[in-house]
């Protein structure tokens, strides 16, 4: 079984993000970039499936600027076998990414595609679902546990108010939630080996996809600063304040 794992290059989760002065986006110059943490979980799950003998090949895909190759290398160091870089300077929105992934899936014929449930930069939470719709494949989103049995896959999903278990027929789409696994960090020998693994370089046109954005970003702004709280002396005072000041009860 071949598994496709899309990996996105995002601002590292430890970085304190700053909005650009002109409100068009966030500062990325000189900022540390890393693999989207949910995608790391996806790579880890694929590698575990391969270690268990349930998968034979793992292909990591990234899209965007040339430096996305570094993100692919990280996946290769964790255990993916080869990479595909779709290189473009265009701003990539979920629908464009889903279309590009569909074209790659048609070429590569994976049985499973494991995406992050969302990317921590724009928190869209859309690519996996769009890809499932475009391919006409079943989807198990927000997965916290997956089990492969024959040509089916059982997915435990984290939904509002609890867990839901769905059974899907392969080929299928999975999106990862935080509790699916704890991704490994690559060992140095595996990092060195990953430098020799192949990465194919494509352009959106090679896949017959026009990645033009369909959404326009109007403005990016900092969230309002949180004001300092107050300490209350008693429950009675709290209730009083909730009634008269916060006016929530």
């Amino acid at each position, binding site marked *: 079984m071949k598994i496709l794992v899309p990996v996105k290059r995002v601002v590292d989760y430890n970085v304190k993000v700053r909005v650009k002065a002109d409100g068009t986006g966030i500062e990325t110059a000189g900022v540390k970039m890393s693999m989207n943490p949910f995608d790391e979980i996806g790579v880890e799950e694929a590698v575990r499936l391969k270690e268990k003998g349930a998968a034979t090949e793992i292909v990591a895909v990234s899209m965007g600027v040339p430096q996305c190759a570094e993100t692919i290398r990280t996946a290769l160091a964790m255990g993916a076998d080869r990479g595909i870089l779709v290189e473009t300077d265009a701003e990539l929105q979920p629908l464009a990414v889903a279309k590009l992934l569909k074209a790659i899936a048609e070429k590569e014929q994976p049985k499973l595609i494991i995406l992050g449930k969302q990317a921590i930069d724009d928190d869209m939470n859309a690519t996996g679902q769009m890809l499932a719709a475009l391919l006409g494949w079943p989807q198990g989103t927000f997965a916290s546990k997956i089990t492969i049995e024959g040509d089916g896959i059982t997915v435990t999903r984290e939904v509002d108010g609890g867990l839901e278990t769905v059974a899907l027929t392969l080929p299928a789409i999975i999106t990862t939630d935080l509790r699916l696994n704890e991704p490994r960090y690559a*060992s*140095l020998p595996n*990092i060195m080996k990953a430098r020799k693994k192949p990465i194919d370089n494509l352009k959106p046109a090679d896949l017959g996809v026009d990645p033009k954005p369909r959404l326009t970003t109007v403005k990016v702004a900092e969230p309002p600063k949180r004001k300092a709280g107050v300490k209350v002396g008693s429950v009675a005072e709290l209730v009083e304040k909730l009634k008269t000041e916060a006016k929530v009860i």
Partner: protein
Amino acid sequence: MTDTDILDSIDAFLARDVVPHVHRLEHDDIYPEAIVERMRELGLFGATIAASFGGLGLPCATYADIVERIARVWMSLSGIFNSHLIMSAIVQRNGTEAQKRAFLPRFASAELRGGLALTEPDCGTDLQAIRVTARRDGDAYVVNGTKTWISNGIHGSCFALLVKTDPNAEPRHRGMSMLLAEKGAGFTVSRKLEKLGYKGIDSAELVFDDYRVPVDRLIGGIEGRGLQHALSGLELGRINVAARGVGIAQAALDESLRYAQVRRTFGVPIAQHQAIQLKLADMATRTEAARLLVRRAAELYDRGDRCDMEAGMAKLFATEAALENATEAMRVHGGYGYSTEFPIERLYRDAPLLVIGEGTNELQRIIIARQLVARNPV
């Protein structure tokens, strides 16, 4: 390709497997067994060993960055693979082909771990005064004497052992040789040495009592080259101790910079008091200067150029920076700096080793001055 991917993995290892445990392990002086196992899986014990012998063949510059990061979190961990890799470098540079093939792959995989056994109870700086002897007896050397302060002495199993094969030779170094000594009959650890800092890692006294080493373990196969071999490992050793210094200096700065912004006196964070600002600025400048000296020495090393003076300067400056920054961090932290619940006192206890080990800083100055004169004759 740069080595940021390697450093990212080191950071992830430190954050996940080291940071949560340092405080307890350090204070109880416990050997970090589980962490050492992770370091083995990570490949650290083969970091600078050539790829053709099963190592990673990393450049010294990357290696120095790794050591800095690890020392920033817990200096003792760097000691567990540093002297092991110096022993490996000595074999890689000076060993016979058979020795390289027999030992380097086992060093790289950490199947055999160890370090460097030079110092004796009566001498450290003046290595030509060593008294451990190795007398040839058929196809073996018979070793007698005591080595002390040997890092990894208890948990390691193979050491680059500096001995006198001819105690009467003049000049004295002509009688010195180096053996690859694996633990066995006649080679015992007499005690674990207690110390101010550098906890967790074992420092031991080793006793040799008619300990027999096959002659094919004589590094390079020729007697009388022991001091040269020991010195050939020292450039890497000094860069490596210098990198630890940068790590300690940076850790002291990081803690101080954070604390100075949250600790308030007289209505403002102490970072707004000029007295504290002067400290922070000096600490940061020292750290950065130290790091650049280490990089410069590492670059020369990687090019294969002679770098004893540059490595000495890096060692001298970076380790003094560590000591000064640790002291300043304590002042910035006030009473909390003196508390064993905060990490500052550990930096304060660890830093002094750096100005003593791998050639005292007094000796570094002497080496630097001699080189200055030798390179600039009038």
